[in-house]
């Protein structure tokens, strides 16, 4: 059976760039697609944004909640903690 994809769509701007870079670092299978004004990141099975990776890239402490400032859409069940946000399809 094919693994279902999860995706995350962010606005294409200065703030989103390091988030995308962090996702690319931490999720080997993530595919990034630039559509006008937006960045769509698709990944088979799951996709995780780590707070530490983004903090490292922007040089200051980054709050997971800041993701919402540039978040357009997402799919998948959300597992959110202080240190990461993970999208995945729950296994039945």
């Amino acid at each position, binding site marked *: 059976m094919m693994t279902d994809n999860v995706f995350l769509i962010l606005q294409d701007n*200065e703030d989103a*760039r*390091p988030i995308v870079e962090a996702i690319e670092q931490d999720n080997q299978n993530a595919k990034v697609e630039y*559509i*006008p004004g937006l960045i769509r990141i698709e990944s088979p099975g799951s996709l995780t944004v780590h707070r530490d990776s983004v903090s490292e890239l*922007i*040089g*200051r402490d980054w709050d997971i909640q800041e993701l919402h400032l540039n978040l357009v859409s997402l799919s998948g069940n959300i597992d959110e903690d202080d240190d990461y946000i993970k999208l995945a399809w729950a296994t039945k």
Partner: protein
Amino acid sequence: MSLDISTKAIKPVRLTYDQVARRIGENKAGSRYQEATYDIQPTTNFHYRPLWDPRYEVFDTSRTAIVMQDWYAFHDPRQYYYGTYTMARAKQQEVAEKNFSFVEKRGLLDTAPHIVKQKVRDFLTPLRHVEWGANMNNCFITDTGYGTAITQVTMFNSIDRLGIAQYLTRLCLLVDENETTGIDKAKEDWLSRDIWQELRHVVEDIFVIEDWFETMVAQNIVMDGLIYPLIYDRLAGEMMHEGGSAIVMLTEFMNEWQQETVRWTNALVKVTAQESDANKDLLSQWVAHWSDRITEALKPISAEAFSGDGELFVQEVKQDLLERLSKQGLKV
């Protein structure tokens, strides 16, 4: 009638400046920090040598014995350029202002015991002069240093030091209910009280170092690495237990500032030491020299300031500093 709405993507011809693209690669947007840092300082076509020192060009790598292949290898982990720096400090200043007005409004210092107030006058207020020295030294590094990656940070650093001196002044004014007696006395102490003379000697010796990288090591790495944990962490902590919790509130900026600045100096040491063994030896030698001198200078102050064994605290902060630096690759 049917409307056909379609989007058309217009790709920018360039994603960043050429000098940034040369470092990070084409087809990649540079961050603001990269764009405000990489290769901003001029490197060629200096028509005249400075009249005040014709041995060198205006910007000259040979002003320091440290040799770097690339002077933009230094990455500030905080990624401070003018914009991020001012925003970060504005936020911190708001917090500090709130703390000051809270302490004033609630009269928190009125209830502080006499001994704590006297410690502010005796041991915190004279540090204004150390901060001024640090301001001078960082201006010197900004002036003679090479590469925006370093000089922009030292400029910010020198402004920070004036801010810290102002906080110390305000703290003393608060303790003395707006009389300047404490401040005048502290200057008197700085100039003539025994326990301060060795430290003043060190500060003045650092003024006349010619190699800006050595100034950096002596001031920003060794001196700050010893004084800040000793005074704003350990001494302020002791004052808190003696009933001066307001003091901890009013010096919190210094604590925070040090923790943040250490991230930068650690990165700086690491990159420089990795470059070559010659750099590593030179840095280690400077650290050994200045850490010995400054710990000696701090001992008499510490012995007076702490109720316990003050000299032991100096040894402790020295140990911490050397351990931290050896983790960055120095042989100390």
